[in-house]
């Protein structure tokens, strides 16, 4: 059982390390320039398919750009935006949610009302407003996505904390003289890790796709920078003639989410107090 648990962390970790290396060392790994257009070679299928060219392992898109190189370069923006958004949104959301759930009363009212305001705003509206005020760019994109994602963490953590803080072990810690901060950090928050991991893994995939829809509207990163999401939306109109345009970026997102899922699952097994006791 322990071996299997570590296997999950290893596989997930290796997938993420490979993706990280792809992002950092993309100029060294990519066989072609991701912007270079070769119009004679456009919509070329992957190498192993009929009519495929050995120069393009995963085929080319409608402008004759190499898909493999674009996926390798795209991992930069997609992973950066995904990871940064999930981490920062998670920090903000979990902190506010835990504080609101634990202290209740006025604190809870204030935090809940703020999160409801953010929920009632249509996501695209916030994004457009932020981009209009601050201009295009990766940092602003991360901020826009973060503002829409933290609410989910906040609501879920708040709900869990509401239930956990009434349990007997928390009363016991308080009776032994545990201060609020100690009880919250040491005994309440660790019990919410399981749900936070699940939300974070799903949020990563959603963020990568949302980045695509924002870039598609011209609000995300500039159009000439390849991202997995923009590759998906560009390839959509060719899905009948050239399915490899959408299959491979989709596969890249799938592998990323799969890796995070495995890693998150493995880490949860280590950190979750309930599962730790059973070992």
């Amino acid at each position, binding site marked *: 059982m322990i071996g299997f648990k570590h296997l999950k962390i290893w596989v997930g970790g290796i997938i993420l390390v490979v993706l990280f290396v792809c992002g950092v060392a993309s100029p060294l790994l990519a066989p072609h320039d991701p912007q270079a257009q070769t119009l004679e070679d456009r919509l070329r299928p992957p190498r192993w398919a009929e009519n495929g060219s050995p120069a393009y392992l995963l085929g080319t898109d409608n402008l004759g750009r190499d898909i493999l190189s674009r996926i390798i370069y795209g991992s930069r923006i997609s992973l950066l935006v995904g990871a940064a958004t999930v981490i920062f949104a998670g920090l903000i959301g979990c902190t506010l949610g835990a504080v609101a759930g634990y202290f*209740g009363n006025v604190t809870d009212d204030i935090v809940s009302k703020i999160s*409801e305001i953010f929920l009632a705003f249509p996501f695209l509206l916030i994004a457009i407003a932020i981009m209009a005020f601050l201009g295009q760019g990766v940092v602003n994109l991360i901020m826009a996505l973060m503002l829409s994602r933290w609410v989910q963490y906040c*609501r*879920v953590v708040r709900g*869990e904390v509401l*239930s956990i803080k009434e*349990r007997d072990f928390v009363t016991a810690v308080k009776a032994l003289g545990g201060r609020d901060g100690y009880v919250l950090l040491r005994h309440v928050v660790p019990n919410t890790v399981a749900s936070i991991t699940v939300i974070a893994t799903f949020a990563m995939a959603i963020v990568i796709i949302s980045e695509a829809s924002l870039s598609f509207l011209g609000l995300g990163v500039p159009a000439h920078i390849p991202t997995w999401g923009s590759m998906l939306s560009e390839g959509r109109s060719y899905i009948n003639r050239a399915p490899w345009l959408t299959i491979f970026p989709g596969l890249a997102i799938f592998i990323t989410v799969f890796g995070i899922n495995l890693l998150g699952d493995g880490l949860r097994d280590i950190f979750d107090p309930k599962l730790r006791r059973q070992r």
Partner: protein
Amino acid sequence: MITIVTILGLQLGALLNGSVITETVFSYPGIGELLIQSISARDYKLTQVLILFFAVIYFVVNLLTDFLYSWIDPRIKF
């Protein structure tokens, strides 16, 4: 269970708010499409009312989730 109810509440709110893009794309006559029409017709009063309606939906759904919490786990009190 608490987590499931929370996520259900968030999803219900999002669904009741009429998926603006879906309704516009499939030209289904729902609130989402009404919002887009009112914005393009510069009908500010209708837009305001619809936005208020969205906010109220979220508020009510969140209130219901809070009630559900204490129904599922009676130890929870507000």
